[in-house]
């Protein structure tokens, strides 16, 4: 793959920037150009919105059979995380053993290497989530 495919998403993937519909207030991640609730009324009006990176595990799995580019990471934990801002996000959970993960666990986003395009291709970065120890110890 050529660089622009990953470059064009860098702000969303590096900094968790999604969009907010000013008509109904719903926050979306990944970003959308049209609000599914407001349709044309939202067209051209969607605003950038940065998520806090906090969240809770909504569901998760331990992946033993990978898609291409993830061979050396398996088994790894994939999760859907619910954020306090509204959107849910699909991401890996790292820095924890699979047995310790559970639904409802507080997590926070970190910036990590995601995968690479073979030996010569570009290295792709983005978010993964780690246990939010501050919240867990409360």
């Amino acid at each position: 793959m050529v660089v622009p495919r990953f470059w064009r998403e860098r702000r969303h993937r590096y900094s968790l920037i999604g969009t907010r519909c000013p008509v109904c207030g719903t926050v979306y991640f990944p970003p959308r150009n049209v609000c599914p609730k407001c349709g044309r009324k939202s067209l051209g009006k969607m605003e950038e919105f940065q998520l806090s990176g906090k969240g809770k595990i909504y569901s998760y799995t331990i992946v033993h059979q990978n898609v291409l580019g993830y061979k050396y990471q398996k088994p790894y934990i994939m999760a859907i995380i619910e954020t306090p801002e509204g959107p849910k996000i699909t991401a890996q959970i790292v820095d924890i053993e699979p047995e310790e993960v559970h639904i409802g666990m507080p997590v926070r986003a970190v910036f990590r290497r995601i995968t690479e395009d073979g030996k010569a291709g570009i290295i792709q970065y983005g978010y993964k989530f780690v246990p939010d120890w501050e919240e867990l110890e409360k």
Partner: protein
Amino acid sequence: MRDVAIIGAGETKYGEHWDKSLRDLAVEAGLKALEDAGIYAEDIQAIFGGNMSAGSFVGQDHVGALMADFAGLAETMIPAMRIESACASGAAALHAGYMAVASGLYDIVLVGGVEKMTDLPGDMVTDILAGAADREWEVFFGATFPALGAMMARRYMYEFGMTREQMALFPVIAHKHGALNPDAHFQREITVDTVLNSAMVADPLTIMNCSPVSDGAAAVVLAPAEIARKYTDSPIKISASTFANEYISLHSRESLVRSVSTIEAGKKAYKMAKKEPKDIDLVEIHDAFSIIAIIGLEDLGFAKKGEAHKLAEEGQLYYDGDLPYNPSGGLKAKGHPVGATGVGQVVEIVKQLRNEAGKRQVEDAKVGLAHNVGGTMTSSIIHILEVM
């Protein structure tokens, strides 16, 4: 709109066809359907072919033209197009063929579905199938297609307390039926222990909770219902053909334990066919993963939310039970050549309604329902068929 009937049906055996190519499979199924209808290739006025990803699986696009060409139809110059809706490509092709005949534009239409999946190593197949989900926001971060199914299952188990043992009953039933179907990919019975102890794919789904990678093709011939008896003594009416979509990624949905697209397509199908769940004599439900079948059965009104496993526990889902479920063996045991599956489900229902299903024949079958989904239940397509 005219009523539409199926006047012929045929399919290949599903499985690992090392000796057959994409075109071999498609042509074999197509010719069987024509033979069954008692017509010749030159009687066909249009072809709609379901196929998810031949471009990735074997590097071949322009599948419609290829099928028509190798079915011997190049010189008739009829329209032939490939229809894609991920794992629901087959049913999507049937929906398109149905519209073409119902509208009056064409009379005799061939609907096919084909997938050649075993020409590539497993990790590449896994990657291609993941294209049914959101490549940039689910798959990029490491989600496989089974991983997404697993997260649906985990959430369902969390909300309703279903156990892995209860979920394992669905593949057990599928294999019991597959053992009665000589065209099924797997014809061997399994137990709950087989399911629980097989290799973990994406926790809590073991490989036995997942449909296999299969080659295969299926085809049906459509005609206006009013002239169907000219071709066959046992035409099967398509009483409903409905299609609904929702958010492609799981994370965009309010719930992981219900499929709003299945609910919507189901509601419309029952209305269109003037039927209720209790009128359905057998179902072919999409069981790419056990959890999808469980949610499908519930959202089509066959069980209360959270309770589909009770149907399995009570033995109702066997072909001789109260709700004959996937008598073909389903995606799990009959196999899942993705683009063929939706058409293959309908071929099974046609066989059942014509009383030609052999050892797995459902008694007194008059009305059947096929449920084919694309992605993580993103697209849901329902067909209700009945004897006429």
